[in-house]
């Protein structure tokens, strides 16, 4: 299920539209994930406040989205491009890779809310494939 040229164009085109809202998108997606999938809170026991809109959630949403931005820029070779991030997730954060899918789903929900007319089925499938490819690249160093 690799990214076709058509997928990459759709992704880059859509990314240009959404990039100005990246921080809000990241914060909203993360907040939703923590509410809708409470088991994900186990990774953030060191935060004082896990509620939507809180400072740590906003800050971390921004961090995550800058990772997504980096992935967009390295879309032609995600595995090599995201090696450092993969090492981080594998050796330090040790996030169960099942959670990548969960966060991806919540990102898609936020995109549907904020960009209802641009998030067409074609853009949806391209973004879903892209986020799956990013998740795969992030899992590279796990074992």
């Amino acid at each position: 299920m690799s990214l076709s040229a058509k997928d990459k164009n759709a992704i880059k085109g859509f990314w240009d539209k959404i990039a100005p809202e990246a921080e809000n998108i990241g914060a909203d997606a993360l907040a939703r994930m923590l509410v809708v999938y409470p088991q994900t809170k186990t990774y953030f026991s060191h935060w004082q406040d896990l509620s939507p809109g809180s400072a740590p959630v906003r800050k971390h949403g921004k961090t995550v989205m800058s990772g997504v931005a980096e992935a967009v820029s390295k879309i032609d070779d995600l595995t090599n491009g995201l090696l450092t991030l993969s090492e981080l997730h594998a050796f330090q954060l040790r996030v169960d890779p099942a959670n990548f899918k969960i966060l991806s789903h919540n990102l898609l929900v936020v995109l549907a809310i904020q960009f209802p007319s641009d998030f067409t089925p074609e853009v949806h499938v391209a973004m879903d494939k892209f986020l799956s490819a990013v998740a795969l690249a992030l899992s590279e160093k796990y074992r």
Partner: protein
Amino acid sequence: MVEWTDFERATIQDIFSKMDYESVGHNALARCLVVYPWTQRYFGNFGNLYNAAAIMGNPKVAAHGAVVLHGLDRAVKNMDNIKATYAELSVLHSEKLHVDPDNFRLLADCLTIVVASRLGTGFTADVQAAFQKFLAVVGSALTKQYH
């Protein structure tokens, strides 16, 4: 027995009472066929599903999307008895339609996204949680009679 909070009950009733079943059903099923193309395996007699435009414009997809949403209505009206309400439908999906139950999750995800885009910021995290829980219970009930 599934425990529903007052908020969850009210949220589900509210979402479905305001919903355009035909439109949401059409869009959710079409989106599912586009985003997860292997789901097209169940619709061999639907004619042209060659690309997103064809799928979106296909009248059989629209009609079937409405059928699915009206089927969901049964769960909306029997929230305390979803498992029993769907026993026959579960047998149907297993014995006759031979649908892989993972597809219930895929369609649920597409429904979530369509409803999210319709409700906008009204689709808060708490509303999303209630909606996804409801769809998960439906999926579980539909899977119950598989063997």
